């Protein structure tokens, strides 16, 4: 089963992955900041992921791992 994982410590909450995801799998944390002060990206609809890698391709911080 496709699986997308986000390393919240590396994530800077830029939102580019969510923007790139064709399936709306990802969304920024609403009320949470990571150690660096950014709201980390969250996998909000894991079941919809197709492992297309679009999110990871756009992530500037290598915060995303995609498995299948």
């Amino acid at each position: 089963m496709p699986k997308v994982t986000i390393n919240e410590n590396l994530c800077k909450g830029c939102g580019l992955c969510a923007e790139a995801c064709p399936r709306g799998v990802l969304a920024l944390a609403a009320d949470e900041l990571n150690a660096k002060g950014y709201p980390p990206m969250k996998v909000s609809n894991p079941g919809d992921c197709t492992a297309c890698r679009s999110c990871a391709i756009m992530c500037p911080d290598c915060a995303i791992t995609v498995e299948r």
Partner: protein
Amino acid sequence: MKDLNVLLAGFGGQGILFMGKLIAYAGLIDGREVSWLPSYGPEMRGGTANCSVCLSDEPVCSPLVTEPDILIVMNQPSFDRFIGSVAPGGIAIIDSSLVGGKTAREDISSFYVPATALAGEKGLQGLANIILVGKMLAETRFCSLDTMRAAIEKAVPPRKQNLVAGNMRAVELGMDS
């Protein structure tokens, strides 16, 4: 009046430098000697920002505040880094919405103000920093409220004077918190 050495610290984008400007302008308006020194360069981006402000009746010698009389912090890393440096007898004002811990120091007065949360509640988004300045004002009376208003008017760009009212509300909120 006593010299006042203030250190302000938090993330970039939280208005740390603006806080410093307010305090510096207040000093200027009251005819005191003043210095304002930001941290600068790439470390500002993404990382932490901090700012030293000195108010004095004599020309300020070292504008770099290493042992603040007053520390205002708006994030955890800055709290961790600077809380130990506050001069004995000094004051620490902490945005407790953003900083989890508490200091064990008893030789300083620490105030935990949930400024970010408060600002959100009261429709003063982005003015958490000003709330903390209000708290500082309440605790130190380093200037009058009129001076503070005048300082805000100077610090806010001419075309944005409509923001003055909100800022004053934030100051007052901070004073009461």
